[in-house]
């Protein structure tokens, strides 16, 4: 089960509306390499993991990604909360506004809704952990593009923090993959 804590894992103190930036960041909420996909990917891959340490890593990183999803949601919310309609139109965010007003929905920057096709669960621990390592690198790459696109230091600060977490998670998944390989080679001997 999960227990909710009434804090953000990293503070979001953005005050300047910027619907253009909101439209770009939202892909990390509901896009293929976004936080919802990351969380659900790891949490659902747990069942087929052969070693307990891999289950622990997927549980803990999958849970942290849920907290990241809340951070990205907070970023998008604060970027559009006080944005006037003409700024939303100028940023090309008016189709989003028509469907969602200033609510937060799971889509890419180009408007495609989230789909489970973004994630894999092969039931094969080696294949799944390689997917997870690739997912962390893809998320890192996207956050680097978002840093390029940001001109608000309050936004950049949060995005940099999120980028660094992907690097740490990649490291942990690499170690987990080694543990799984060790387990599988031991099993072959006996």
């Amino acid at each position: 089960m999960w227990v909710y804590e009434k804090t953000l894992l990293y503070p979001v103190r953005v005050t300047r509306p910027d619907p253009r930036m909101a439209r770009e960041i939202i892909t990390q909420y509901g896009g293929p390499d976004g936080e919802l996909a990351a969380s659900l990917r790891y949490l659902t891959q747990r069942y087929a993991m052969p070693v307990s340490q891999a289950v622990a890593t997927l549980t803990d990183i999958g849970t942290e990604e849920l907290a990241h999803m809340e951070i990205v949601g907070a970023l998008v919310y604060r970027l559009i909360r006080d944005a006037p309609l003409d700024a939303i139109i100028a940023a090309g965010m008016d189709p989003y506004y028509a469907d969602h007003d200033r609510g937060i929905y799971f889509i890419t920057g180009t408007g495609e809704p989230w789909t489970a096709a973004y994630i894999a669960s092969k039931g094969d621990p080696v294949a799944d952990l390689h997917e997870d390592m690739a997912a962390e690198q893809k998320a890192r790459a996207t956050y680097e593009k978002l840093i390029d696109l940001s001109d608000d230091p309050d936004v950049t600060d949060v995005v940099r923090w999120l980028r660094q977490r992907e690097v740490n998670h990649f490291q942990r998944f690499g170690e987990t993959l080694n543990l799984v390989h060790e387990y599988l080679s031991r099993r072959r001997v006996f």
Partner: protein
Amino acid sequence: MDEERRQLLDRLVALEFTAIELQLFLDTHPDDQRALADFNATAQELAGLRELYESRYGPLLSYGFSPSPRAWRWVEEPWPWQM
């Protein structure tokens, strides 16, 4: 949110982040005694700080992990994205 509350919250969140990072490290290095000692020291400091924060500003955790003496303060603002 007043400055005193913000500072307390920032310290709390920083400690929680420390605990998460140590937890992830320990998942793949369970025999690392230094990391284990750091984790337990962080958990202890975090429990004290959470108790102090909650006594002033209301419960942080849901489902019975935080008490709510006298009044049901869970429904009070601010929520995390409003802070």
